């Protein structure tokens, strides 16, 4: 368990910036979201010991890392908090093996909980050991950086947008490794990200920061309905996330049918095992992949046509974000359309419309998490 209560004020170009965060983290993995400038990186830096808080305390289980009242401020190199950065920060003058062993060698023998071989095998980096960092691809670099941090047998892992500089294909290659780390090693993680799908692959627990404070903390499905969180949804890159009840899953079919309220939704899905699955599913849909129509459309390949009512129309640049509530449910969706179509279709608050969503643009998130 991590007990956090930290305050800090510093001057920057915009004036005083105050950070005040109190929370108890019990979940193994927490996703941390927030618009740029919310203080996410400063928050991580305070946990790691890179930045000194003005006041407060930080306890990791029973260990005190910082307590202003007791005058305790453990130096960074004694905290054993693993960090993985967006720019892998591998040492360019050392090969992969020596990068991995950098912290490992400094660790007292009795603190070594994770062996070198175990980590190398887990992350599948054995074939890279003799190479220099500049010879590695972006994805390999991040795996080595993750391995290096894991080899100090960290009490906690801080991941600061570790996948942000990778393309979608590489992200999909790294995520399973992060999942393995989470499932096999049982190390608490704080994961800063801009991509909700990335985070929901690992955890359902998220914290949202805004202007130096924690706006919400808890299960994503519960806090997303928080008014301020919804308002931030677009800037946070939180795409539409929908919760649906699985209705049927035909064996051999590449999709399943789910219910949202009383409406059906087709979701592309390949089951991990042959037996059929039941329960709830979480899916994400990008706002730009949702079209709006005044009527149900026939003679079109789009199968998902959900009845809805407009609750908000908000122009952003030359686009318009239209928020709708799906009929007979509490699920909100945001559709990104052009200003001209809003005008032509006379879309306003209260308009009854249909959301058209191509099945292929629906992205199923980890079913087991909800």
């Amino acid at each position, binding site marked *: 368990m991590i007990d956090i209560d930290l305050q800090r004020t510093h001057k920057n170009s915009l004036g005083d910036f105050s950070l005040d965060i109190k929370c108890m983290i019990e979940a193994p993995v927490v996703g941390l979201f927030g618009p740029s400038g919310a203080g996410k990186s400063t928050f991580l830096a305070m946990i790691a010991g*890179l930045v000194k808080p003005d006041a407060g305390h930080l306890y990791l289980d029973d260990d005190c890392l910082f307590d202003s009242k007791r005058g305790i401020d453990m130096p960074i190199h004694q905290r054993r908090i693993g960090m993985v950065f967006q720019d892998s*920060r591998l*040492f360019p003058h050392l090969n992969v093996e020596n990068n991995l062993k950098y912290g490992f060698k400094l660790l007292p023998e009795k603190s070594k909980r994770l062996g070198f071989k175990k980590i190398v095998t887990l992350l599948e980096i054995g074939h890279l050991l003799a190479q220099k960092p500049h010879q590695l691809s972006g994805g390999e670099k991040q795996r080595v950086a993750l391995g290096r941090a894991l080899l100090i047998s960290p009490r906690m892992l801080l991941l600061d947008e570790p996948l942000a500089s990778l393309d979608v294909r590489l992200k999909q290659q790294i995520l399973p490794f992060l999942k393995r780390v989470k499932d096999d090693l049982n190390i608490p993680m704080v994961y800063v990200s801009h991509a909700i799908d990335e985070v929901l692959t690992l955890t359902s627990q998220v914290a949202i920061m805004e202007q130096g404070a924690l706006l919400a903390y808890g299960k994503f499905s519960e806090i997303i309905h928080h008014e301020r969180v919804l308002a931030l949804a677009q800037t946070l890159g939180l795409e539409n996330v929908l919760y649906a009840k699985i209705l049927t899953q035909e064996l051999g079919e590449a999709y399943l049918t789910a219910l949202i309220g009383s409406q059906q939704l087709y979701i592309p899905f390949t089951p991990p095992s042959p037996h059929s699955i039941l329960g709830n599913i979480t899916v994400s849909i990008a706002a730009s992949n949702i079209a709006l129509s005044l009527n149900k459309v026939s003679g079109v390949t789009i199968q998902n046509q959900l009845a809805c009512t407009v609750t908000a129309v908000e122009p952003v640049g030359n686009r318009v974000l239209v928020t709708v509530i799906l009929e007979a449910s509490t699920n909100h969706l945001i559709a990104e359309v052009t200003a001209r179509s809003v005008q032509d279709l006379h879309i306003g608050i209260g308009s009854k419309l249909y959301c058209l969503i191509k099945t292929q643009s629906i992205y199923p998130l980890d079913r087991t998490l909800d």
Partner: protein
Amino acid sequence: MATDAIFTLSPTEVEALMLSIKVAVYCTLAICIPGVAVAWLLAKKSFIGKSFLDSLVHLPLVLPPVVPGFLLLLLLGSQGFIGKWLQHTFGISIAFTWVGAVIASAVMAFPLMVRSARLAISQVDRGLETAAQSLGAHPFKVFATVTLPLSMPGIITGLILAFSRSLGEFGATITFVGNIQGETRTLPLAIYTYTQIPGGDLAAMRLVVLSMLIALGALMMSDILERKATQRIGRGLKVEHD
């Protein structure tokens, strides 16, 4: 006179050459550690009096060399503040010895060493040092295993610049330790001496060519070493553009 005698160094010329190299080597060794330490202080730390230290270190670059030479004489000369004390306590006299020549050229070469090392140290990515700390390395360990190896090309350049500067030192040396054959008469002083005596032009010319060859060799060596060090730290192909 045989033609090959034109190219043959006389024993006193050889003596000047060997003395020059000895002084330059000791000078380089002497400023190596303090140079890196001051460079690190200036590159990484902020403290009261930083700009004063910075200016002080650079002073020999902009002063006429005779000024530092004279100040050294005032301080370390046999009648000097520290010199007197050294003489009384340890029986050591620095003025008019080759050790004094080392001190004079160290003072003159120090800013070149610091400038080069400071630039190299300040260019080491702060993020790498942070990463090393988070992996459990004490700040000294971080310096030894990350900062130092990554700034090595710049430090080597600084050392070779200092070595070359020491070989060429004239003004501070002649003011502080004089021009004593076999003790303080390094190559530049020997050249100067030959130009002052009738018929010394040929000998002066030989030493001029020699000085140029040594300086050229040192600069080329600097380039090669820097290239190697840069490759070693894994920047590979970027060397050409650095």
